[in-house]
């Protein structure tokens, strides 16, 4: 960790102030409805100090920590797509005047947004959505505008959640790139401090304004040990190397029927997934018919309407819809975008109301595929 600086909690407040002074709206983890969700942050008091989460398949509970760590939990039900690729986006409005129709595109919203507390898996998720929404012939102008002016403060994970498997997906727990600043929170020895490194020129500029001091070798060693311990204590794992080939060779595996018998096709997994990007569009008009508009909203491949064609759904069974979601995420995403669509954050496992575990489903197919030892 070269050029590693240390900040106190006051120093972290100074970071918030510096970002706000630069015109950034700062969004970060807050406590709301017994979950840690992303919202506006004004002072350190807005952060969930001293809280952690218990996560298991279909299970999420907040509990108190013994210390006052500000980032002592794993990811919650929100992801940053809520702000970068929001759930509802108006696309245009049309005014009907006499015989004329005037269509006005919704202007792209370009706000300066700082994201505070972005985990390594989430940096990867943002990079994946960048490829999906900005990497092709056609770009999503709204996403592009929202991504243009971001300041990203990443946080290295000091502990793994019960459903985390970023170590398997090679997406964490340490932030490698895609941030302006990265923090590692140290709460031991009765002293609360943050190691901080810059990843961009703007990050260095901001860091230079903060009351930071050089980190000691002991602090750097402690941070490295912490990250190694996190990597070694993942709640889940997935053998990801050949999962694309595994799933594409097993599109008719009986396990799809098995998982379909448990899946409620509620779509929770797609809503909490930080890379799921699918949207649908809805047109509406006012009562007089003088103004019409189109909005797009998050959609899920678990709905019947998603694949609607000529009076019916192409994927009518739960089996087909679960298979579409999982094979897209883990297999065809590679064909489409050159990466996996899964970052190992574990949200789909935690927030599945019946506790379906994507790592377990992959394992079950692997162990019972054609030619597997029985």
């Amino acid at each position, binding site marked *: 960790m070269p050029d590693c600086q240390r900040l106190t909690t006051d120093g972290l407040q100074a970071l918030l102030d510096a970002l706000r002074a630069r015109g950034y709206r700062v969004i970060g983890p807050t406590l709301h409805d017994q979950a840690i969700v992303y919202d506006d942050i004004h002072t350190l008091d807005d952060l969930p100090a001293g809280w952690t989460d218990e996560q298991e398949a279909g299970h999420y509970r907040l509990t108190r920590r013994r210390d006052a760590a500000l980032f002592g939990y794993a990811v919650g039900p929100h992801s940053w797509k809520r702000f970068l690729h929001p759930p509802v986006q108006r696309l*245009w409005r*049309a005014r009907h005047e006499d015989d004329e129709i005037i269509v006005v595109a919704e202007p792209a919203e370009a706000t300066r947004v700082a994201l505070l507390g972005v985990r390594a898996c989430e940096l990867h998720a943002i990079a994946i959505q960048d490829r999906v929404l900005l990497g092709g012939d056609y770009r999503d*102008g709204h996403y592009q505008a929202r991504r243009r002016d971001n300041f990203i403060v990443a946080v290295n994970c000091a502990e793994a959640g019960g459903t985390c498997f970023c170590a398997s997906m090679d997406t964490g727990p340490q932030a490698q790139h895609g941030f302006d600043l990265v923090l590692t929170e140290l709460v031991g020895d009765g002293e609360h401090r943050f190691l901080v490194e810059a990843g961009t020129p703007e990050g260095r500029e901001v860091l230079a304004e903060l009351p930071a001091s050089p980190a000691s070798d002991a602090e750097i060693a402690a941070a490295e040990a912490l990250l190694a311990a996190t990597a070694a204590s993942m709640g889940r794992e997935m053998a990801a190397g050949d999962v694309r080939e595994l799933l594409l060779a097993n*599109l008719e595996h009986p396990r799809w029927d098995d998982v379909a018998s448990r899946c409620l096709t509620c779509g929770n997994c797609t809503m909490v997934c930080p890379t799921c990007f699918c949207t649908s569009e809805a*047109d509406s*008009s006012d009562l007089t018919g003088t103004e019409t508009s189109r909005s797009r909203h998050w959609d899920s491949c678990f709905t019947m309407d998603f694949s609607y064609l000529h009076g019916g759904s*192409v994927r009518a069974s739960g089996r087909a819809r679960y298979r579409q979601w999982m094979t897209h995420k883990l297999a065809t995403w590679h064909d*489409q975008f050159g990466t996996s669509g899964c970052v190992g954050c574990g949200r789909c496992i935690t927030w599945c109301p019946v506790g379906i575990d994507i790592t377990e489903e992959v394992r079950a197919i692997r162990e019972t595929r054609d030619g597997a030892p029985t």
Partner: protein
Amino acid sequence: MAARPDRAPPGDPLTPRVVRVLKRRRDAPRTVTLDIAADDATAFQPGQFNMLTAFGVGEVPISLSGDPADTNRRVHTIRAVGPVSSALARLAPGDALGLRGPFGSGWPMAAAHGHDVVLIAGGLGLAPLRPALYRLLAERQRYGTIALLYGTRSPDEILFRRELAAWQRRHDIRIGVTVDHAPSDWTGHVGVVTRLIPGLALDPANTLAFVCGPEVMMRFTIAALKEAGLGDAAIHLSLERNMKCAVGLCGHCQFGPVFVCRDGPVLCHDRLGGLLGLKEL
């Protein structure tokens, strides 16, 4: 190997332009063809589609069915099946609608230079093939033998009847029309469209097939073409899936690794592997 524009056309791809209906013709029960005044001179490729908006109702993908050489109008053949297509099919000359496009890949017209080409259409699938036929006939000397085989439900559902009759009188193209059932005054063919393939005596090494129709029809047509000796790389299909954005951003039209709107709708069969036979993919 499907033809594809070099890059996205300029402008906001998600906002429709307002265009006007020039002419409306009834082609078959519940099926009309709209000529829409072109708002720009952008050429489209045979096989591409536009997104058409009935304001306040919604938007649907409709393939271009007119002559690609005619830059004054955009022609769309629409069957009224849902609320949006029904609203579009009710439009009269002078009415306004929204248009985005053209989108997607086209038939591999250039790759077919010097080859025999057989177009096989099922039902409304004749609409996206008609621009290919206009192009083939406009550049007749570039191609070998040309044939169009067209299967539909019954004689009263036959699209573009007068044009078909005119093409049937030409000596430089073979036209075969067959229906699933007919009243007794029908003297044409009755039976599945693939029955007309053997009569063409295709040269499998030198023939490209462009196929468009319902998926079941395309599956049995592929089987018949392969029986006639054509390879997967010689068979091109126009696929259909639910499309919302038409530019590869909304995720709806996925078919395995393919985004039908962006990679298709025209795709070479060798790209699809065995996926076409897979249930509920």
